[in-house]
């Protein structure tokens, strides 16, 4: 009984910010500055949502974010998959150096690189474009995705691949029929990581995108904050609430694939 209560308390603790966001997004301005705010708005209003959508065109910004984040996630996984397999399975000095370099690349704060990146993208005609942004997000997510995915590959027993080879499967067949299905949770986790990091990213989107029609959601949301942190809380909460929905849907859709233990009993000793 105590365990359930503790779990419930933990859930309430985790969910409270989201519930508070929901409550704030439906409050009229006067209720936002009450000394003793209530969880349930006294006079709920949709006005914050209307303002969020009409003033900053959040719908278009959300669509932009969705395109960029999905593409970044897929491209990251596509590149990380063969690379991580090679790193995990084929031991070589080059592989060790590559892994070291990947680790080292994480030490550079990206803010230091923004101006060179901006100049390079401009030279190749990708500044102020979603393609440029996707490129940056892929490069950004790739090192971590590689580390993550090669860990998943290492967890797949080599014996399974050897057994497939003994059964007459070619290298490609082994990869397609044995390795990739077992790697699905890892691929999903990597895709989720890439998606969320691109979805939440603010600074590159702010700096690289100049055309208002191409702005992403975090950039659009920032515009509800004024001088010295003063914010228009209602529309900001409404917009932020909407911004969490795609991530929740993405998680809900993908979380089944995250289940571990799919390899339990695969190899019997």
């Amino acid at each position: 009984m105590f365990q359930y209560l503790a779990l419930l308390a933990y859930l309430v603790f985790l969910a409270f910010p989201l519930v508070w966001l929901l409550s704030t997004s439906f409050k009229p301005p006067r209720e936002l500055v009450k000394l003793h705010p209530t969880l349930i708005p006294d006079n709920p209003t949709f006005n914050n949502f209307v303002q969020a959508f009409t003033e900053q065109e959040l719908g278009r910004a959300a669509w932009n974010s969705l395109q960029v984040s999905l593409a970044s996630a897929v491209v990251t996984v596509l590149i990380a998959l063969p690379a991580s397999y090679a790193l995990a399975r084929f031991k070589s000095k080059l592989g060790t150096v590559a892994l070291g370099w990947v680790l080292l690349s994480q030490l550079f704060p990206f803010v230091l690189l923004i101006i060179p990146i901006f100049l390079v993208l401009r030279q190749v005609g990708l500044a102020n474009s979603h393609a440029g942004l996707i490129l940056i997000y892929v490069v950004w997510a790739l090192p971590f995705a590689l580390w993550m995915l090669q860990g998943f590959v290492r967890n797949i027993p080599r014996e399974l691949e050897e057994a497939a080879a003994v059964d007459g499967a070619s290298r490609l067949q082994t990869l397609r029929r044995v390795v990739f299905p077992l790697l699905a949770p890892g691929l999903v986790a990597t895709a989720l990581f890439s998606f969320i990091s691109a979805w939440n990213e603010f600074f590159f989107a702010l700096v690289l995108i100049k055309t208002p029609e191409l702005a992403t959601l975090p950039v659009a949301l920032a515009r509800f904050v004024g001088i010295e942190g003063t914010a228009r809380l209602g529309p900001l909460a409404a917009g932020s609430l909407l911004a969490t929905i795609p991530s929740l849907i993405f998680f809900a859709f993908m979380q089944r694939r995250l289940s571990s233990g799919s390899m339990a009993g695969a190899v019997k000793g």
Partner: protein
Amino acid sequence: MSRNRFGRRLVATAVASVVGLGALAGCGTGDDEQSDGPAKLRFLSLAWQKESMQANKDLVAKWNADHPDIHIEYVQGDWNSVHDQLLTSFEGGDAADIVQYEASGIGNFSKQGYLADLTDLISGELKGQIEPGIWDTATYDGKITGVPFLLESQVIIANKKLLDEANIAIPAADGGWTWDEFQANAKKLTTAGRFGAAWALKSPTNRVMNLALNYDGKFFYTENGKTEIRVGDGEKEIPKRIHDMIYTAKSASPEALGMSGADTLPGFFAGKYAMLPGSVSLRQQMVEQAPAGFEWVTLPPIKGLSTTQAANPQTLSVSADSKHKKQAVQFLEYFLNPTNMATLAKGDWLVPTGKQANEELVKLTGGKQGWDVAADSAADLTVAPFQKADGYPEWKTKYATPALQQYFANKITLDQMATQLVDGGKQVLR
């Protein structure tokens, strides 16, 4: 089976994304520089209040309708990230043609040559509309690199009912209280469960620097090309008075120390504080958020030896790299004509820098909702030494804010605070 389906879907999505990436590369680029057709200029606006954004967009739309040869594209920016955005776009050679910022923020950009010298481009009419002291805030090395257009002054927002109950007369727009009167009235308004005032001191440095001018407290002194911090009686006066209100007279709320201006509003509306020293723009939140029937009034700036305050106006600058500087200034002349400037100021609840705009705004609003006080306070605003000091941002962050916060939290003495400020100056200023 299900895994195979998942794999196929993943591959299909990947292919679609890669194709999409290619398509996006083709359609998303906006770096077009046309040789024919209208001149295209980007205008980075930081308007963020609903009315202000609308006013900006309307003026741009009207300009575009009336000027088919000069097209202005409205680009929305935001105050929190504008510095980084401008820095990267100036360095990258892709800044908007017209940029909004604040006078204290454009200094470094001016010195690095990123902003066009507007001295000879702006008309005498626009120059004459704005006081020389205000132009000084956006003049660097003798070059005007920004047109100051909106000002923010420090006033007092008060609960009218509580003032009436305490028989405290509301001063006229041009006749504010002295600091002694303000402190005495705050004491009068203090009762059990209510403080006479709430000083929101989450970011105390700008406010102290600003109000110190009331007692001629400059903090930054430059002699023979060398700038140093000095904390004499003039500099100590404002911190001392605020400290006294919190700890000696107990007429100012200690809980407001960690708050920003807007954080004090719930307590103000609930009657916990009678007066809020704050910016004129706070009136916008009063109008939008005050409970029905709540009567509030704007009181003029407090007077020390003078009512002088530091002006840090919002500015409009033209990028030095812009290919259309003349057209940009043409737009600025239109955008900041007295009527339009008054509209922009009204939208942001700030004070217009233009004299005629100020008069028009008072006429337009009938002086209500504190517009008479706001308009009158413009005369007290001028450039302050700290605004021109190169090391100010670093000194503020590393030394001044911590020292002032410790003093206001009663952790160090006034003299210890002064020592920290001076020592910090030695570390930062050259």
